[in-house]
């Protein structure tokens, strides 16, 4: 038992929502601003996790279980997305030998 955590006050819904919104914002701006495809990918996952955190918090404070169930669906979908995404990134790296976004500009006229 970690005494610090055990003694911590019970946090209210706004605290959870604040953290969730913060994670979502970090993820969103990360996707827009970062240049490395893998980091962009991590930011996308961060956005999904922000939604998951808010979902669990709402589920707890609303007293309905549906939110917790939805989390499993989201995890499954995120896993499928990662599987497809990483496959595309690896195939693209084999062709172009780069994963930097600014160098992936073949499709421009």
């Amino acid at each position, binding site marked *: 038992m970690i005494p610090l955590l055990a003694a911590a006050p019970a946090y209210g819904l706004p605290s959870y*929502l604040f953290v969730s919104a913060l994670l*979502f914002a970090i*993820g*969103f701006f990360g*996707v827009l601003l970062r240049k490395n*495809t893998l980091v*962009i*990918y991590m930011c*996308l996952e961060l*956005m*999904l996790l*922000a*939604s998951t955190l*808010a*979902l669990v*918090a*709402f589920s707890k404070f*609303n*007293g*309905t279980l*549906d*939110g917790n*169930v*939805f989390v499993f*669906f*989201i995890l499954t*979908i995120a896993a*499928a*997305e990662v599987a*497809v*995404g990483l496959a*595309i*990134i690896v*195939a*693209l790296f084999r*062709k*172009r030998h780069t994963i930097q976004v600014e160098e*992936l500009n*073949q*499709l*421009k*006229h």
Partner: protein
Amino acid sequence: MSTELLKAVAASNEWWALGPEIILACAALGLLVLELVTPKAQHRFIPHAAGMALAVVLAGVALNFGKIWDGEELFGGLIRLSMPGQVARVFFLLSSLLVCFLATVCLPRARVPRVEFYHLLLVVTAALMLLAQSNHFVMFFVALETVTIGFYILVSYYRERASSLEAGLKYLVLGALSSAILLFGIVLLYGAVGRVEAGGVVHTGFEFGTVLTFLRENPGNFLATAGALLVIGGVAFKIGAFPFQIWVPDVYQGAPTPVTAFLAVSSKAAGFAVLLLLVHGAFAPLAGVLVPVLSLLAAATIIFGNLSALTQRNTKRLMGLSGVAHAGYLLIGVVASFTVPWAAGAVWFYLFTYLLASMAVFGVMAYVAGPDDSGEELDHYARLARERPFLGAVLAVGVGSLAGIPPLAGFMGKLLLFVAAFHAQLYGLLAVAVVGVVISIFYYFGWIKAAWFEIWTPPAAGTDSPARPLPAGPKWVGVAALALLTFATVLLGFFQAPLSGWLLPR
């Protein structure tokens, strides 16, 4: 298994009602099994099997169309059977059948595995049909993600081409971004609605009906309004509306031609089916917020799509950006449907004419394209009408219908939408749309001109590129499919009754 359970299952028609989707999913798995058990020489019949499955399901849905389940909810409210849902089923099946035909033309030119393409096509079609009938946000999100993840793979299907992979990556990043935004919107709605107890049953904010009641009873709830707007933003990505259209040209160009057609027609139609479902279902009380937002989106989308299409020489980018403009016209129909109920039918009529014309044009593009279909320019259409008069004629009718030239179906689609907008007194949007149509005639005619009229070019000394090979002549299936699309486009321009009597309630 107890007999009571079997009886209960037999008594309820829940699974029967989802027959088309279940058959498609089984057929998709069947294709993979077929590839394993049949000798390699027989593999060329697998595309025909996929086409047959789609055609059989389409015939089944069409035959049972009269048996309208009006607003019946299945599986504890996950699915809601309705007339628009049935129309969407027919639309997606027809579109996938034509994509299947395009794939039999295009895929043999590339060194890629083929069976998986048809597998994914069937899975995505089933998910699209479920998406249009969903009545619950969990169902909605899962169906939408099945479609989107299927499209990630389809867009990057030419895995030996950097352009296709790059398009896949761009679609993946922006698609996942929009999905995350949409998901956050769903979570906010869930949180705002909270726990609703009615008649001893606990309802949550995932159910469309509960969201509708909540929004009606609590107008101006900030959390719920923000959630609804985030969901609409995620859907706007699907239809390629203005601030979310940034992926369209690159992805359309890099994707294989059949996938571009699938994206342009089915993915866009799915966006509109969902948009109509939401703004008339769960988000109906938010009309005061949604009408200005959607109007602004429509105007910006029309102007952006038409102006950026003006300078395009690459045909796929041209189709993509003009498709953005078409999404703008359709958004006007969605805005009009808040006050004029039959405008929703007009949106579907427009989508059907767009399907016929786009598939005809993509069919011609598939034949004209060489092995590398991402670099197809307008110049490649020079002398098309003289060398392949049939393809030239199909192109002229298809592009003419997209531009909205009077005797063709596209004109009637635009007319219906604009009459609806006029009845809804959206004069400002109407003016923008008319200006957009005038601009669009310029670039569409540039395409027809490239195919039909000789352009004298000075012979460049020494630097002339090797002559392009003659476009492949279509086989009889191709001739039949393209002729049917062209015929339907011309016929719908004169007689709208078969389609409008069915889509527009009197």
